[in-house]
């Protein structure tokens, strides 16, 4: 059997292609981005014409994936954990409409917040929507679960969530592929009212979803991904969710774990396994990546008094990602520590690249605002968030996609004038346009900086939905064209940039200043590609 060395995210991309999808929908976000990139570049996917272009945001992506499912074909939508907040309306309601063609929503959580604003656990969302959740413990399971997940979705008639975390997403291991399943033909739902959530229909469909819960649990009980492993010492039980199962195994390299273990990779948690555990165990330890979802659940689900430990009890830290050492400590095993880090080692935080246009923009902004008190710049999610760090220290907020525009407006409403928003091109089309419309309709006195590097840079330079459209969008929303200014952020234009800031700060209304210069990383990539084309014109 040939093994492919796949990142977890690549295994998911391959699983979707081999599972017969006709389209993938996504907005880039670490650690989920490479799922879609893999499909965009995969030869078989290109050959089959699988639809894979980036969407404007996670909500539009989700709805389009649901539309493809409505039409009878299999589709997948991918996002990082906070992206599901954006798509939540569509997500929750799609559990009630149900699906037609199989639909998988793959969500990549980021415990320890390596590249995120929070470490929310998507299993909560899955439970909230009352749909089955698959949580692979390794790259092979990630591939298999996605490949087979469309059929599961069709059988249970609801979307299925695949939940992974950073460590699985960005770790490589050997994966064996299975046969490629065919795509589905267009075939509309048998019941034409299925997707019409008018109250009378929604009530009926919601009852149906409630009735299906038992089936979901039974299916999880039978799932090959869940396993009840009896131990010699039956007094102590361990529930190991998803990738946590590996950290448990790491502590028993000879496979000699003496305790009863429930490997849990498909939810809802099967009550039968809990009942079985409750018969013998006096204490149960829960190992889970993220929030104490299972720990809270089993406390109520055990029908007798069993001591439950995990992230809530303090056996494991309440926050951050798990590892084998933390699991060893929770098991009372000794851990080994190498030498200490010498005191002279300092942090090396990420920084804006040398030559990046955001730097020139921030230098001009800082000078223009120098005469005012600090705390007037609201920013957003992207490379330019690094403007919060020295030497710039320019921005005072980074909350969620698009919040710069609306928070600047709210602060201006409160009387903070001048009030400035700094947002990137792709974040602007993701969630900034509606906020700008609010500002225009309310005649807010704000300056909106769109720092346009013509790509989604933080996640690796994906194509931006905003490309070539920013000025016309702003004018279309109602910004006075005299106050839509476009500049090139370069050192030699510094004085002009400062002057433009001063003019627009003086204007009592909504101003948009677009600073447009290609991302330095994208430019380097483009030049390398052009050189290659020149050297090998036939390739």
């Amino acid at each position, binding site marked *: 059997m040939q093994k492919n060395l796949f990142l977890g995210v690549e295994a998911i991309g391959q699983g979707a292609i081999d599972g017969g999808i006709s389209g993938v929908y996504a907005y880039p976000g670490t*650690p989920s981005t490479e799922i879609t990139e893999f499909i965009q570049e995969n030869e078989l996917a290109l050959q089959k014409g699988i639809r894979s272009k980036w969407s404007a945001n996670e909500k539009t992506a989700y709805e389009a994936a649901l539309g493809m499912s409505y039409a009878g074909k299999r589709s997948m939508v991918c996002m990082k954990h906070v992206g599901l907040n954006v798509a939540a309306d569509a997500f929750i309601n799609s559990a009630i409409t149900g699906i037609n063609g199989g639909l998988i929503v793959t969500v990549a959580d980021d415990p320890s917040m390596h590249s995120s604003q929070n470490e929310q656990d998507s299993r909560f969302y899955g439970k909230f929507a009352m749909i089955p959740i698959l949580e692979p413990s390794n790259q092979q399971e990630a591939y298999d679960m996605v490949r087979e997940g469309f059929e599961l979705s069709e059988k249970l008639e609801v979307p299925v969530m695949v939940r992974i975390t950073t460590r*699985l997403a*960005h770790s490589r291991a050997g994966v064996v592929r299975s046969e490629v399943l065919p795509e589905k033909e267009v075939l509309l739902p048998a019941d034409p009212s299925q997707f019409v959530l008018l109250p009378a229909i929604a009530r009926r469909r919601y009852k149906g979803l409630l009735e299906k819960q038992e089936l979901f649990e039974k299916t999880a009980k039978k799932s090959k991904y869940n396993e009840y492993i009896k131990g010699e010492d039956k007094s102590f039980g361990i529930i190991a969710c998803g990738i946590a199962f590996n*950290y448990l*195994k790491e502590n028993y390299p000879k496979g000699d774990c003496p305790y009863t273990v429930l490997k849990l990779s498909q939810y809802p948690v099967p009550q039968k396994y809990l009942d079985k555990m409750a018969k013998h165990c006096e204490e149960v330890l829960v190992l889970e990546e993220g929030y104490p979802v299972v720990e809270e659940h089993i406390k109520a689900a055990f029908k007798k008094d069993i001591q439950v430990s995990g992230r809530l009890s303090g056996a494991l830290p309440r926050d951050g990602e798990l590892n084998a050492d933390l699991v060893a400590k929770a098991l009372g095993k000794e851990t080994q520590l190498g030498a200490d*880090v010498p005191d002279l080692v*300092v942090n090396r935080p990420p920084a804006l*690249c040398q030559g990046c246009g955001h730097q020139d923009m921030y230098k001009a902004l800082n000078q223009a605002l120098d005469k005012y008190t600090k705390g007037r710049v609201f920013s957003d999610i992207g490379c330019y968030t690094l403007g919060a760090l020295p030497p710039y220290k320019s921005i005072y907020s980074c909350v969620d996609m698009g919040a710069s525009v609306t928070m600047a407006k709210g602060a201006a409403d409160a009387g903070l004038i001048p009030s400035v928003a700094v947002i990137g091109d792709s974040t602007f089309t993701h969630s900034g346009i509606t906020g700008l419309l609010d500002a225009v309709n309310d005649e807010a006195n704000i300056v909106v900086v769109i720092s346009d590097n013509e790509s989604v840079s933080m996640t690796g330079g994906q194509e931006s939905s905003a490309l070539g459209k920013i000025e016309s969008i702003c004018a279309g929303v109602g910004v006075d064209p005299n106050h839509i200014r476009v500049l090139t952020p370069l050192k030699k234009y510094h004085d002009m940039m400062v002057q433009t800031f001063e003019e627009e700060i003086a204007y009592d209304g909504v101003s948009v200043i677009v600073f447009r210069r290609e991302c330095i990383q994208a430019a380097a990539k483009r030049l390398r590609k052009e050189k290659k084309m020149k050297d090998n014109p036939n390739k």
Partner: protein
Amino acid sequence: MKTDIILAGVGGQGILSIASIIGDAAINENLFLKQAETHGMSQRGGAVQSHLRISDCEIAADLIPMGKADLILSVEPMEALRYLPFLSPEGYVVTNTTPFINIPNYPDVDAVLAEIEKQPHFVAIDADKIAAEIGNKRASNVVMLGAATPFLNIEPEKIEAGIAHIFSRKGEAVVEMNRKAFKAGLDFAMANK
């Protein structure tokens, strides 16, 4: 056989290309492999690490436990020190001595090198200088790969074949230059370990 390696460096220095050459060699040897990478924000000039685990039996966790790494392979000296808690008492530190200074408070370079020399098992090599002498500064990562090879439990010829394969698209001259870089690193480590 089991080799647990922490690869360390700064975002943009190319530690993942080193990891991929070792990874290819391991897969060609039918070994099991897991390799956890840093993607996202840190790739913008921040500290980055990769956990590379190679074994002849199945590997459980994607991350190396503390105190269990056989090797820290770092393309930057301060970054080598950052991961010492992962290194086993018998493990080796193999590091480039050329610092990558992109922060204002980078410590005194001699003090950093003195800390490395305090380690019980180390190879400290000026890979940038050796690469420049060979004729291409950009080959410093291949020099580092050579310096790490005595500690990988994979035959040097297998790694060298991987290098030849990866650079073959760029022509025989580039392959030959990288072979030289690899050998220079390997020879240095054999003489100084």
